């Protein structure tokens, strides 16, 4: 993939440094963290993520979407979407992280860039309640069936309370929650949270 301004990406000694420099030149000064030889993390604002991803997909060797997942930062009131884009021939991955507003959980779909994003977006839609307008399988149940509660992977979904409410246990069974047990045994230290 030859770039007229920068030369061939394959020839550069450190592909991670080089691709981050090009993204900075082109899109803006996003904070980058060089974690390993094959992994760079970039925190991208929401308005820039689709241009960056489509540029990576069409004009650089970063052609594979290895995964797409979400993290719920309940205390910040934000969701974080994590796109891992890989250059399989250069053996470098970019971890692009985007923060979304938790109250208005909506993000642009990357289905047009990668076909397999449809399944990832369907799962995130079901498990976190983040909506991807334009993605083909939004709202179609993927894993759960007949689910009436809030999306289960959100942090404020309490799975123990849900189990107590819905799934009866055998009489006489005691919950041995590790958190309670450690708290009882080690005092406050066990309640690190």
């Amino acid at each position, binding site marked *: 993939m030859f770039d007229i301004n920068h030369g061939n990406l394959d020839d550069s000694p450190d592909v991670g440094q080089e691709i981050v420099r090009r993204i900075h030149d082109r899109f803006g000064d996003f904070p980058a963290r060089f*974690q*390993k030889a*094959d*992994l760079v*993390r970039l925190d991208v604002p929401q308005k820039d993520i689709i241009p960056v991803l489509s540029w990576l997909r069409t004009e650089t060797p970063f*052609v*594979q*979407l*290895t*995964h797409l*997942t979400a*993290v*719920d930062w309940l205390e910040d009131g934000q969701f974080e979407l*994590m796109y*891992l884009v*890989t250059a*399989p021939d250069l*053996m470098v*991955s970019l*971890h692009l*992280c985007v923060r979304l507003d938790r109250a208005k959980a909506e993000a642009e779909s990357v289905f047009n860039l*990668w*076909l*397999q994003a*449809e*399944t990832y977006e369907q799962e995130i839609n079901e498990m976190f309640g983040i909506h991807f307008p334009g993605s083909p399988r939004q709202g179609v*149940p*993927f*894993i*759960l*069936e007949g689910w009436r509660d809030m999306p*289960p*992977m959100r*942090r404020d*979904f309490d*799975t*123990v309370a849900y189990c107590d409410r819905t799934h009866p246990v055998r009489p006489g069974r005691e919950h041995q929650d*590790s*958190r309670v047990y*450690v708290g009882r*045994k*080690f005092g406050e*230290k*066990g309640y*690190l*949270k």
Partner: protein
Amino acid sequence: MSVFDYTTQPGFDLISETPNAGTTVDPKEVQLWFGPQHPGITGNMSVQLWLEGDTIKRGITHVGYLHRGFEKLMERRKFIQSFPIVCRMCVAEPDTTEYLLASSLEELSGLDQAVPEKGQWLRTLVMEMSRLQVTLMVMGGQVGTMGMGTAPNWTYTLRDFLLDSFEELTGGRVYHMYITYGGVRRDLTPGFAQRLEATLDRIEERLPYLDDLILNSAVFQQRTQGVSVVPAEWADELGITGPVLRAMGVARDTRRDYPYLKYPELDFKVCTATGSDIYARTQVRRAEIAESIHIIRQILQMMPQEGPYCAKLPNMLTWTIPAGSTYVRAESSRGEMGFVMVTDGSDTIRRVHLRGPSYTNAVTILERMLPGMNIADLSATMVSLQTCPPEIER
């Protein structure tokens, strides 16, 4: 000779009155559920098919029958309590996920430099043994879907001898929980290397006979050559890895491309084939069995006999890991498996996500391969893509 005319029989007019009368349904189209209760399905999943004759017009994969919410459960538990959980994410091959959990949290906590030499060798050993036993199982399952019973009986039995080695080493046949933070749980037992060597000899001795039954069998060739071809342009589009990719002739392997553990010191080649059909994928697996045996022999020779196998660990009940995020990957028998690990400075995992090859194989690739496929090839196709339902839905 007169042909029996069933249209004159009483009650025939009722047959044409389908429940969906009035809607626009193609009268020649039949809807069929393949699974979850079906002897030909892999694991517990289902494919909803629309057929015309025995040709599939389209289909949808349905998963979620095995969803246990592991990622949610791991957010509630201490770090050490996650080991019994991760090995159940992929039932057939637990060691890869164990390694991924251990290495991702070691990386975030800075413990990764502390893993002793012997611990790394032992991790490499169990991961390669695990790849070998799954590949054997899939080879047998592949011909089993075509109605041949002898090869599965042989390969499952050979796999079982490997499971005996696992039991001796780790204490468990299927779920090992052997890899832990900082190394592994136990050292080799005396004489383990000789017994494992004998098992490998036994497998190797049986391989030419398996070749005659599988790859050289005319029935198998007729059923698989040119069937279920994955187009090469999907490789980047859909993120295909593992034997499915290597059957296209693309030599990519996580063990070589993103070196981890002791793989850089080992001598192995990346097995490829051409054709990208079921036969090519089986050829790749057959070559990988021989290659895995070769790797395990090298490990047994090169492994140091003495030395610690696990680093000194902090108190697991109060251990906290600083905030951060990472992605680690390892080569499973199906392709690249990876963990996205996010921690927030507390004593639990903030978010973990398993990236498995089955996710793409069973949903995106399979659904796009279904139109035009013969229904008799569906089961063999699913096994050749090595779909593993518990890994898709976790």
